[in-house]
């Protein structure tokens, strides 16, 4: 008996596009360690068929700024997560060292760098948006941003596009 047995086969839920499920992630921080959470979550959501929007605002703007996106840094200074004495973290060269270590660690885990991550997210259908006020503050326009950013939008525009979305603030 080789007929389709969808009646009897336990079948994973692989086709709901989570109808109506929508995710908006606000990326407000531009340090290397705080860029990743939003990117990882966006990537995971897209893999589950969830419509996903990323809104880059304030320091998070550095993630989509062509000039800075490949040079985000991880500073251990004032970061309790390092479990290191704060007095040591302020030493010269510590940020460069910590950034280097973190990048190496990510690479070891086969996690892409920021530009490649954004490429992956947009290949998966994710939407990238820049914040109008951040652009104005930094005197930047769309030409300064990663090519796949769909537009620079205001906070009110973001409210419209995130209607009905679950929102995550990073």
């Amino acid at each position, binding site marked *: *008996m*080789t007929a*389709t*047995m*969808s009646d*009897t*086969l*336990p*079948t*994973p839920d*692989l*086709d*709901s*596009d989570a109808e109506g499920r929508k995710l908006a992630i606000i990326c407000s921080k531009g340090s290397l360690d705080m860029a990743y959470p939003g990117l*990882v979550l966006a*990537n*995971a959501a897209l*893999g*589950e*068929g969830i419509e996903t929007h990323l809104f880059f605002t304030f320091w998070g703007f550095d993630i989509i700024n062509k000039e800075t996106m490949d040079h985000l840094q991880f500073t251990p200074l004032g970061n309790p997560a390092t479990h290191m004495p704060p007095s040591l973290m302020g030493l010269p060269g510590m940020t460069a060292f910590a950034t280097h270590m973190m990048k190496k660690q990510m690479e070891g*885990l*086969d*996690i*892409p760098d920021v530009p490649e991550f954004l490429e*992956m997210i947009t*290949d*998966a*259908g994710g939407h990238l948006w820049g914040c109008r006020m951040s652009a104005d503050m930094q005197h930047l326009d769309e030409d300064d941003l990663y090519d796949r950013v769909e537009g620079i939008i205001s906070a009110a525009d973001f409210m419209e596009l995130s209607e009905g979305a679950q929102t995550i603030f990073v």
Partner: protein
Amino acid sequence: MSDVLVAGTQITLDDEGFLTDPSEWSPDVASELAANIGLELSDEHWAAINFARTDFEENGETPTLRRMAQAGGVSTKEMFRLFPKKPAKKMAYVAGLPKPVGCV
């Protein structure tokens, strides 16, 4: 868990419907599982499935989308075209592999 007969073979599925033992898989099983989720397998599907099976054998892990793009030569865009909506899970399902566990 349930034992079912698919393509003339007795296979065991977990509660969600994924094969519990990749060695119970065969191309015929794949075609039938694919049909069960509305997919008809093309050569491109087979290329992805075969890479995933080989990669699983070698590394003991179902490849993630990134791994498919990096090592398997199937871009993320293609994966979404071949296995719409939930590409990594769909591919794992058809290839008789566990759901991918990697985050990226």
